[in-house]
């Protein structure tokens, strides 16, 4: 009973059609079923009866010995007792299992999927300069398009695969041979990439094949140009070059699309009395996604970006789906919270053969874990209650799909879920559930026919697929047998056919053993040894020397009581006041201080510390790229650190927005953030912003001298003031809408006093000039960072009211720090400046207390005041002293237990507590390391057993290369001082 639909005749892709295409003739579309013109092969009758097969109607629903009637490309009936129409060709399906035709929800045809024409030549992309600043102007010397060419724009929402789809018939054949009958073909370049197209795999003629022209808008939240490019460092890069820059670009693009629509509407109503609006095809193309009428498929470069994509979706009112990264096992909690469907590749890494056994020493534990965990990823997402669709994406050849999917099944993915992930789920996600996904009358006649068992049985094989009523036989057997990869390469005379692998037929048991080993998970759950060690209702320190960094000063033989994460009392506490169940710390000679606070950190940031491209990147936010998974959190907790001010680098006069976190190890990126902390932003002066040490390729961006820096600041603040005025005027008087500009919006927040400037500053001249420029805009600077010559202008700083967050004793690493002295902190304090010491380093942040001790040594800051440099003072500078920085009743239960005097090098940090929870303790830390070592050894043993042997022998080079790819969140944070230039350093192992 086919629904009454307009139908197109199905052309068998016969020689006649091919000849027509080759001749460049337009194939006429017939609006009715009539005979083809003479000379064409006449169309056959299109009724088929598939009898005696086992029919999987939908996952988990089966009919045995059923009959499927196909008519005119659709399923007419499915039943066990249907009468077979007289004109039907009858096909005996005995011994086969018939599934709804498989769908690949994320097919990237790569370079081979030849585009018909370069779409960029047809439509102008978004000029990313427009994404960065008001009035659409760029910054001199700062390229804002990759390689300075429009063809490489990263923002191309207007790119439609529907316009360019022109597949290689051989690629389609290979997919059909694996059982696929339809696919969503995706764009694969850039940040906002364009729209995918849902196609039938039965025809390589795009007009024939396209079922749904625009399926999703695609957005990649990844570090751009991650592909290796050796010369990258010598030349300026285009905006955006960091992950946080990418996120800012996505936000600005959507705001621009919305603005363009509003602006156009205003123009339509006021066609004569306002400037004509500009019209960008690219932004127009983004509107359906912005209006939720087209889903957005996010391709996160890190599994943490799943969470970020969800927040973007909420902010921008998008309808999101995710492409799985393969690393979701790291944070199942975030995936569950996302509660969106995932399209899941099965391109699992495989262990390579390493030249030398010792080479395994260099393999990071995390890489071994990722390899071990990968096949469990699809099952894990299902366990978290998420819909998944599987895809061949990322595989070198579609032939690897089935064996890898089998591995996923061995790790707990149910067969029925796996089939759903190839049929019903992708059909629904791609909006074609009325046409595809299950075997039911009225659906398109797409079927995947498997013989010799079910699809995921090791011995089974695809016999044929049906696509819209047309049969495609699988590749003949002899082709396949030659090479298990199905890769029938012509014989290479120089390369004997793998003589080193004599198939070892006598050892099928060994092979099976290895397969079983691979299928078994060795690793422990990723979050198992993270999170607080103790979360007692109350903590009681019986007797200690307590350095309050508050009004009570240092108190001897004092007690401290924390209840529900907050300090209840300190000093003398009656035993009766200690709640039952309190955790009691009762050791002799201990000292207790507030948790250490680092006012300048670049740890725990993924995808680049600097958006170093433009001179102003006020629109980027470190808060978008907090790395909750870094091991540095544990290491810094071990030194008593509890709060860090994560700052953008100092590559530009106006950098990105900061993020203040608490080191609640194991929490999500959002969970790390210190709620209520005022917003801030990084500024910078001096050598870094004028690119003095960047190399000869960097001599054009404004500013190139210290003269240019105040000019630049004045310019942007003036622009921001005008922007704010324009917004206010629009609000008051109406008129043409004002484009939302994320850069100027941020600077306007500074002018309004809502955002603190943390300015990297060195030389006294630039410091004074900067303060004066800010004063001219009525802005009081939050902190001067590093402030190496601050001691020369301490009075000016004190009068302005800026805090000073200094290095304790770094100097001489650049010309502008030749006059840095370790007495700076003491001198500035004496002259009334609020002083803190910072680390700018994932090493120094492990011993902030010892940095503070240097203020005692140089310049004689009293001990209690010195400790405040890393506790109360940075808290005040960051505007978070309501909660942290000192031990006072009502404040957060953040404290450190030291074995002795906290400024003595002989003392060590024994315990670190945040919010009344214990996050570090020495014995627990050693137990954790021992357990991890045991795990590492087990993983190494497994990897070595499987390396280059057994089932992995069939693994592709791509899968082996993938083994070496470290996840974005695992790449270690860096050890550097003044790290501002080292935007490449995070890649360092």
């Amino acid at each position: 009973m086919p629904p009454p639909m307009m139908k197109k005749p199905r052309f068998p892709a016969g020689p006649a059609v091919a000849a027509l295409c080759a001749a460049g003739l337009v194939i006429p579309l017939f609006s009715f079923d009539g005979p083809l013109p003479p000379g064409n092969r006449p169309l056959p009758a299109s009724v088929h009866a598939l009898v005696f097969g086992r029919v999987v109607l939908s996952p988990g629903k089966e009919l045995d010995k059923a009959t499927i009637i196909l008519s005119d490309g659709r399923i007419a009936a499915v039943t066990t007792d249907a009468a077979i129409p007289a004109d039907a060709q009858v096909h005996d399906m005995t011994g086969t299992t018939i599934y709804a035709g498989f769908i690949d929800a994320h097919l990237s045809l790569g370079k081979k999927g030849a585009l018909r024409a370069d779409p960029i030549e047809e439509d102008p992309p978004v000029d990313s300069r427009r994404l960065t600043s008001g009035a659409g102007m760029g910054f001199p010397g700062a390229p804002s398009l990759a390689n300075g060419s429009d063809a490489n724009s990263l923002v191309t929402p207007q790119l439609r695969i529907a316009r360019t789809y022109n597949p290689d018939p051989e690629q389609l054949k290979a997919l059909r041979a694996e059982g696929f009958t339809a696919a969503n073909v995706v764009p694969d370049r850039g940040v906002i990439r364009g729209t995918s197209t849902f196609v039938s795999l039965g025809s390589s003629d795009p007009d024939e094949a396209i079922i749904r022209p625009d399926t999703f808008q695609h957005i990649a939240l990844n570090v751009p140009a991650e592909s290796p490019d050796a010369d990258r460092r010598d030349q300026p890069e285009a905006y955006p070059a960091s992950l946080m820059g990418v996120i800012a670009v996505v936000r600005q693009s959507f705001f621009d699309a919305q603005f363009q629509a509003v602006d156009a509407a205003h123009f339509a109503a006021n066609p004569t009395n306002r400037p004509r609006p500009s019209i960008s095809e690219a932004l127009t193309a983004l509107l359906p996604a912005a209006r939720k009428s087209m889903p957005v498929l996010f391709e996160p470069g890190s599994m943490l970006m799943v969470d970020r994509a969800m927040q973007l979706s909420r902010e921008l009112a998008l309808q999101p789906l995710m492409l799985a990264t393969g690393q979701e096992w790291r944070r199942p909690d975030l995936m569950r919270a996302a509660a969106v469907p995932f399209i899941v590749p099965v391109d699992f890494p495989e262990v390579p053969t390493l030249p030398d056994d010792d080479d395994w020493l260099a393999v990071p534990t995390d890489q071994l874990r990722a390899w071990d965990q990968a096949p469990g990823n699809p099952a894990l997402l299902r366990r978290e209650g998420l819909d998944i669709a599987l895809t061949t994406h990322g595989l070198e050849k579609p032939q690897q799909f089935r064996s890898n999917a089998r591995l996923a099944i061995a790790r707990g993915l149910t067969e029925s879920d796996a089939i759903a992930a190839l049929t019903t789920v992708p059909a629904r996600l791609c909006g074609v559930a009325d046409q595809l996904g299950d075997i039911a009358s009225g659906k398109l006649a797409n079927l995947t026919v498997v013989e010799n068992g079910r699809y995921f049985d090791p011995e089974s094989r695809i016999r044929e697929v049906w696509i819209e009523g047309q049969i495609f036989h699988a590749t003949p057997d002899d082709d396949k047998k030659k090479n298990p990869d199905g890769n029938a390469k012509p014989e290479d005379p120089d390369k004997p056919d793998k003589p080193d692998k004599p198939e070892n037929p006598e050892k099928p048991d060994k092979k099976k053993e290895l397969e079983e080993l691979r299928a078994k998970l060795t690793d422990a759950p990723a979050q198992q040894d993270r999170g607080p060690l103790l979360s007692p209702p109350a903590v009681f320190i019986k007797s200690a020397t307590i350095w309050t960094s508050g009004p009570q000063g240092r108190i001897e033989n004092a007690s401290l009581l924390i209840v529900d994460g907050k300090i209840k009392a300190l000093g003398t506490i009656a035993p009766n006041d200690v709640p039952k169940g309190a955790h009691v710390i009762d050791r002799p000679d201990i000292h207790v201080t507030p948790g250490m606070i680092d006012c300048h950190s670049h740890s725990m940031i993924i995808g680049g510390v600097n958006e170093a491209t433009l001179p102003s990147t006020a629109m980027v936010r470190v808060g978008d790229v907090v790395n909750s998974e870094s091991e540095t959190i544990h290491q810094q907790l071990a030194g008593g650190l509890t709060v860090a001010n994560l700052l953008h680098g100092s590559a530009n006069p106006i950098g990105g927005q900061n993020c203040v976190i608490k080191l609640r190890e194991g929490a999500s990126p959002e969970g790390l953030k210190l709620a209520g902390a005022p917003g801030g932003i990084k500024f910078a002066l001096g050598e870094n912003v004028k690119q003095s040490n960047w190399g000869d390729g960097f001599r054009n961006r404004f500013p190139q001298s210290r003269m240019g820096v105040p000019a630049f600041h004045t310019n942007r603040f003036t622009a921001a003031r005008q922007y704010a005025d324009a917004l206010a005027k629009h609000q008051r008087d109406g008129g043409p809408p004002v484009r939302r500009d994320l850069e100027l919006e941020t600077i306007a927040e500074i002018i309004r006093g809502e955002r603190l400037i943390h300015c990297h500053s060195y030389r006294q001249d630039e410091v004074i000039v900067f303060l004066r420029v800010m004063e001219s805009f009525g802005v009081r600077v939050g902190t001067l960072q590093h402030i190496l010559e601050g001691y020369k202008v301490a009075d000016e700083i004190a009068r302005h009211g800026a805090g000073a967050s200094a290095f304790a004793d770094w100097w001489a690493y650049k010309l502008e720090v030749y006059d840095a002295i370790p007495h700076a902190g003491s001198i500035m304090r004496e002259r009334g400046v609020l002083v803190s010491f910072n680390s700018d380093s994932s090493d120094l942040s492990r011993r902030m207390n010892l940095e503070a001790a240097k203020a005692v040594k140089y310049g004689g800051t009293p001990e209690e005041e010195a400790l405040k440099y890393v506790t109360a003072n940075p808290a005040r500078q960051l505007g978070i002293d309501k909660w942290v920085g000192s031990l006072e009743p009502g404040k957060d239960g953040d404290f450190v237990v030291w074995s002795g005097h906290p400024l003595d090098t002989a003392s060590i940090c024994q315990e670190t507590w945040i919010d009344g929870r214990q996050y570090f303790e020495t014995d627990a830390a050693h137990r954790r390391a021992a357990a991890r070592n045991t795990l590492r050894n087990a993983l190494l043993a497994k990897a070595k057993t499987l390396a280059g042997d057994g089932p992995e022998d069939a693994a592709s080079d791509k899968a082996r290369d993938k083994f070496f790819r470290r996840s974005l969140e695992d790449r270690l944070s860096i050890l550097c001082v003044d790290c501002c230039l080292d935007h490449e350093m995070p890649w360092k192992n």
Partner: protein
Amino acid sequence: MEKLAAFFLALLLPAAAAPAGTLLLRGATVHTVTHGTLTPGDVLVRNGKIAAVAPKIDEPADTSIDLAGLHLFPGLISASTDLGLVEISSVRGSIDSQETGQFTPEIESWTAVNPDSELIPVSRANGITHFVPVPRGDLIAGASGLMAARGWTVEDMTVRRRTAMHLFWPDHSLTVPGPKASKKTKPLDEQARERAERVRTIDQFFADAEAWEKRPAGSPVVPAWQAMLPVVRGELPLVVHAQGLREIRAALKWSASRPRLRLIIEGGRDAWMLATELAERKIPVIYSEVFSLPSQSSDAYDVQFRAPSILQKAGVTVAITESSGDSASNQRNLPYSAAQAAAFGLSRDAALAAITLIPAQLHGAGDSLGSIEVGKEASFFAATGDILDIRSEVRRLWISGAEQSLASRHSRLAERYRTRPTPPPK
């Protein structure tokens, strides 16, 4: 020829002019390093050398100084640094720490030490009396010298021109595909071949040096081979710079077949894993990695803090240095690297020896520097407390009996701006 040979063999220079007469330091807590701690003790200096160390010395002296309440330590010796070779690490014109070429044994680091470097008084102000500038390079980089942190000229400063030859062991890690690798990354097997080739290159160089040793007298002089002779003869130590387990292991394996070499491992991040073998073969370690981050996420947070203690307890001789990055400007923090090791298991005495006596011994000055004992140079300093404690201040400092100024660029700038009049309000 003879002249050249004399030049190379006369390693120990005549001591710079020492102040004549006697100096008596009274009442300090004397940390002798070799003979325990005297609380208090007196030290008598005659002609720049230590003449007596005792709880009480009654001998009259030309000068007598009361150091009651202060702690007297032997001068700190930086066992490996680029102090003197680098002024500002981002300004190329001020950097002389590295040469080009794989085999430059004739390089001598003392020749490029800038006596007027502002960094030297800054280091001295925290107790550093001697330092060893190390030439860097690819494979055999040259010889380090031992310098005193005082003198009008580079010759004044130089205590020993050649204390050790430095071999930078090739990195054994492979460049694997990934974001950092360029498209030109070679296949792993090829990289492994090249790696083995580099080790063979080193071995061949030493074989050639040994062959040179046997050349008949009167053969033409080749400065590079001449410079290698004391190394292959075991007269000059060979410092092998290696961090990872496999690099250190490879260096140990290679050197086992050349028993005359006097090996020292420098860097030594993973040396603790090979503590037993290092102890058995009496190979000392100059450890620079106290503050390096753990290299694996499965390592304990304090693995690098504890390494010196593990090595020392296994019987390995351990010196401690500041980490190699920006080490010139940070030499004053040398005692705090040792202090961290002490907080994590190393005995306080061993920590102090690791920055005094042991560096002196490793660089051939064990009989003249590194402790407060009779016969040694009077190079020491008086501090307000334990030098391993950051809060202690160095008050007075002597090198070979001559008291040195503790002023530096830093103290001058501090003084100048501390006294800056408060400007009137604008």
